[in-house]
C-alpha cells in the first residue's frame, strides 16, 4: 500500500545526493545520535522525577516544562537528521521488520508522552496517587529505551 511512497522517497534528488556522497550519510547519522542523546536526556530527567528519584526539590511540572523546550528542539533535530536517512534507504527499510517496529513503537511512545505523561507531569502535586506518577515514569522510560534500542539494532538486523 505504501510502496509508491517509498519509491517516491527513494527517487528524491536528496536521496541520490546522499547515496553519491561518502560523508553525508555518516555525518547525518552521527548528528541524529547526538540529537537522540539530548532528547533521551530530557526524557530521563523527567521520568526520574516522576519516579520520585530525580530532582525532587522541584515540582514535577516545573521539570516537565523546562524539559519540554529541550524535547521540542532536540525532537526537531532528530526529525531533520532522520528524514534523509529514511528516504535514502526507503526501499531497504520498507522490508525491515525492525524499522517498521521502531516506527510503530515511536508512534505509540510519542502519543503516550504528549497525552498521559504530560497530563500526569503537570497535574497538581498530591492530586494523583504516587503509584500512578511512578508507573507513568516507568512506562515512559521503558518505551523510550525501546525506541532507542530498536533504532540501534536496525544496523545489525534490519
Amino acid at each position, binding site marked *: 500500500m505504501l510502496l509508491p511512497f517509498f519509491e517516491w522517497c527513494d527517487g528524491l534528488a536528496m536521496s541520490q545526493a546522499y547515496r553519491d556522497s561518502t560523508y553525508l550519510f*555518516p555525518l547525518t547519522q*552521527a548528528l541524529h545520535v547526538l540529537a*537522540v542523546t539530548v532528547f*533521551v536526556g530530557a526524557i530521563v530527567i523527567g521520568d*526520574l522525577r516522576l519516579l520520585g528519584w*530525580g530532582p525532587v526539590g522541584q515540582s514535577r511540572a516545573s521539570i516537565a516544562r523546562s524539559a519540554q523546550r529541550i524535547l521540542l528542539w532536540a525532537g526537531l533535530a532528530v526529525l531533520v537528521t532522520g528524514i534523509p536517512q529514511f528516504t535514502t534507504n526507503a526501499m531497504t527499510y520498507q522490508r525491515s521488520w525492525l524499522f517498521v517496529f521502531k516506527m510503530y513503537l515511536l508512534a505509540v511512545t510519542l502519543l503516550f508522552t504528549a497525552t498521559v505523561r504530560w497530563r500526569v507531569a503537570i497535574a497538581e502535586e498530591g492530586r494523583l496517587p504516587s503509584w500512578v506518577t511512578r508507573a507513568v515514569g516507568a512506562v515512559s522510560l521503558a518505551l523510550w529505551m525501546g525506541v532507542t534500542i530498536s533504532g*540501534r539494532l536496525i544496523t545489525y538486523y534490519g
Partner: protein
Amino acid sequence: MPSIVPTFAWLEGLAWTTALRESPYGYPLIETSHVACIVVFAGLVIMMDLRLVGLAFTHAPLAQIQRRLFPWQMASFVPSTATGILLFCVDPLRYYRNVFFLAKLVLLALAGLNALAFHLKTYRTAEGWDEDPLATTTARVTGAASLLLWSLTIVSSRLIPNNWFK
C-alpha cells in the same frame, strides 16, 4: 619502544573474544547495551550542562540537580565503560588505528578532566551561586566545554565504522 600490536593480536585471538566476534548476537547486543547506557549517561550530563550554561532548569538550584542526577550518571557510566572495554577487546586491531576511535579517547579524557576540574574547584564554591539562574562565568564556561566535548565524543563514536583516514 615495544609495539603494542602483539598484545592486541593475542587479545583478539583469545577464545572468548573470538567467540564474541563471530557470534551473530554477541557483538551487536554488547554494542546496543553500550549505546543505551551512553545515551542515558551523556543525556543526563548534557541536562546538567544545560543548567550550568543557563539554558534549562534555571529555577532549580544547581546542587540539587547535580546531587540527584549524579547517582544515575554513575549507574549508566559504569556499564557503558564496561561494555566499551569489552567491545575494544573483541576487535582491538580494528580499533587501535581508527582515527575516530582515537579522537573519541582523547575527547573522553578531556571531558573527564573538565568534569574533574569542575568538581574539585568550581563546584566547591557553588553554595554562593547555587540558586542563581545564571551560574558564575567559570561554571558556565565549564558547562559549555562539557557540552562541546560530549557532543564531539558522541559524533566521533558514531563515525568509528567509517574509517575515512587509513
